[in-house]
């Protein structure tokens, strides 16, 4: 008899393993006593609860769909979006708002969404310029200037 790996097996197991890892790095936090609770009391109680709930999710996994049935069709798109956003965050302060955001928008619209080159470029630069005007000039909310602005 083979056991089907189900969605909640993975989810419940993930929370148990995650809880155990966090507990392992919580060693230096004192639990204290009931009369004098330490900095580690609530975190350790909460980790215990998290692992217990994770265990219940795991034990009741039979009601959940097979893990193989979880639709991951949107993952490549999501991964591309998050990779470009991560690059933008890394460049945000060194390059500044205008350059980074123009590149991010262009990357998403032209690179990910395959929209026409000129439309993508004009939209990216135009919208970034408007956002810069709105936040930096009208709302006096300083944005990173970076190398050029």
């Amino acid at each position, binding site marked *: 008899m083979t056991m089907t790996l189900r969605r909640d097996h993975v989810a419940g197991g993930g929370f148990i393993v995650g809880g155990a890892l966090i507990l392992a790095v919580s060693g230096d936090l004192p639990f204290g006593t009931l009369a004098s609770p330490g900095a580690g009391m609530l975190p350790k109680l909460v980790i215990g609860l998290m692992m217990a709930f994770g265990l219940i999710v795991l034990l009741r996994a039979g009601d959940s769909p097979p893990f193989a049935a979880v639709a991951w069709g949107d993952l490549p798109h999501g991964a591309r*979006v998050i990779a470009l956003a991560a690059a933008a965050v890394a460049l945000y302060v060194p390059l500044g708002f205008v350059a980074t955001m123009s590149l991010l928008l262009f990357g998403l619209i032209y690179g990910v969404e395959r929209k026409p080159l000129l439309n993508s470029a004009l939209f990216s630069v135009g919208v970034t310029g408007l956002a810069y005007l709105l936040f930096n000039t009208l709302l006096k909310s300083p*944005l990173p200037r970076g190398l050029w602005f």
Partner: protein
Amino acid sequence: MESTLDSLALGFSVALRPDVLLYAFIGCIVGTLVGVLPGIGPLAGISILLPITFGLDATKAIVMLAGIYYGSQYGGSTTSILMRIPGEASSVMTCIDGYAMAQKGRAGAALCIAAVGSFIAGTFGVIVLTVVAPPLASFALRFGPPEYVGLLVLGLIFLAYMSSTSLVRTLLMAAVGLLLGCIGIDVMSGHFRYSFDIKELGDGIGIVPVAVGLFGLGEILSTPSKSMTAKVIRPRLAELLPNRTEWRQAAMPIARGSVLGFLVGIVPGSAHIISSFLSYALEKRISRTPEEFGKGAVAGVAGPESANNSASTGAFVPMLALGLPTGPVTAVLMAALLIHGVPPGPQLVNEHPQVFWGFIASMYVGNLMLLALNLPLVGLFVSVLRIPYAYLYPLIIMFCIIGVYEVSHSVVDVWIMLIMGGVGYLLRKFDFDPAPLVLGLVIAPTFELSLRQSLVMSGGDWTIFFSRPIAATLFAICGVLLALSALSFLTRKDWRGKLAEVEEVGEKR
């Protein structure tokens, strides 16, 4: 009552100031747009725009942000009726009969009924809020640390009980939120917790990066742009007014939805979503023509739309009177007040009467503005839907980054948002609702402080939570809710299943 009216007069003197009116108007417009646009909900909208309010005083800030919240409830109905896409989660039920009415050529009437129902319910909610919140705040002044522990535990258990996913999954998410809330310096002992030598984490994890990541970015990651194409039914403005029969059919569902929505709204949980489901189920149950539901029943639009607006107002009662957020949106609004140096809770009405009453009065004005805006400008809002999603979501990502960075000018916050976006995506895949996580994060500092203060003041005697009448009552209610959940788990029958059945039937039609 007289003092309430005097205070309300003070509130109107604040809310009717031209500058406050302007921010209420901006909030209503932005809220309607947030409601209209699929893929961006009120939570992401409020979180992204929170930094814009930093230059404003607390009254203008909360008036604008609250306008976004209840404005989104109005706007959510537009896409539901015209496109069969809920612009906002609470508008799911409106899709069923609203779109069916639109297909019959009654789109204008459905939009009008939704707007008028929203206005009546929103105004009803504000009137009850005006009457209920101040005495509740006076009562809450008797609360000490053990009562606050009881109240916060009750809030979490209520949230789990009312949640559309299972009790265990909700509590699991709340536990993750509480754990995230433990990051940073422990205020009682000075210990650094889970900061891994990143100095920015010393102050803890902010609500805004977490909320924007989970609800803004997370939503975008799980919404591929090619899936966002739909046919928009253009309403004929000449046919905006419902006929006499439709008004008659809408009257009682609006009244019932208003009362039901408010009652559900004051209970922690995704009240505005649950209230619309409950209202739809109630209207169908008591209808003389239940077979009409799913085919364009007026009550199927009027009831849920009124209920979700009333619920969004009801959710302000525990926030303003007790300092207890009932959901992620009120949690972010609470954070906004805290950022402006105004702690919500029992002291708010006495210490900041201008903010408290100005905010309440602005909701009367805001509801009127929304009614005036939504019908004549429906064509304009619909035209926003023509912006291709491929151009729209990069814009939202840009605003997410700006919004999070501007809170404390920290790139670490933006990285947290990005990580939370990935977490939000995974949580959706594994059928976890991220809302309790945000709630856990918000209440974590108060919960921990109250818990430890209670234990210290009792010398380590945990029975302090059951020996004081108010705390004991709150924990007794927690016990009853847990027992009810255990019962429904054993019998495998609870209200969630019934709601799912109602939704399923509607979807099939």
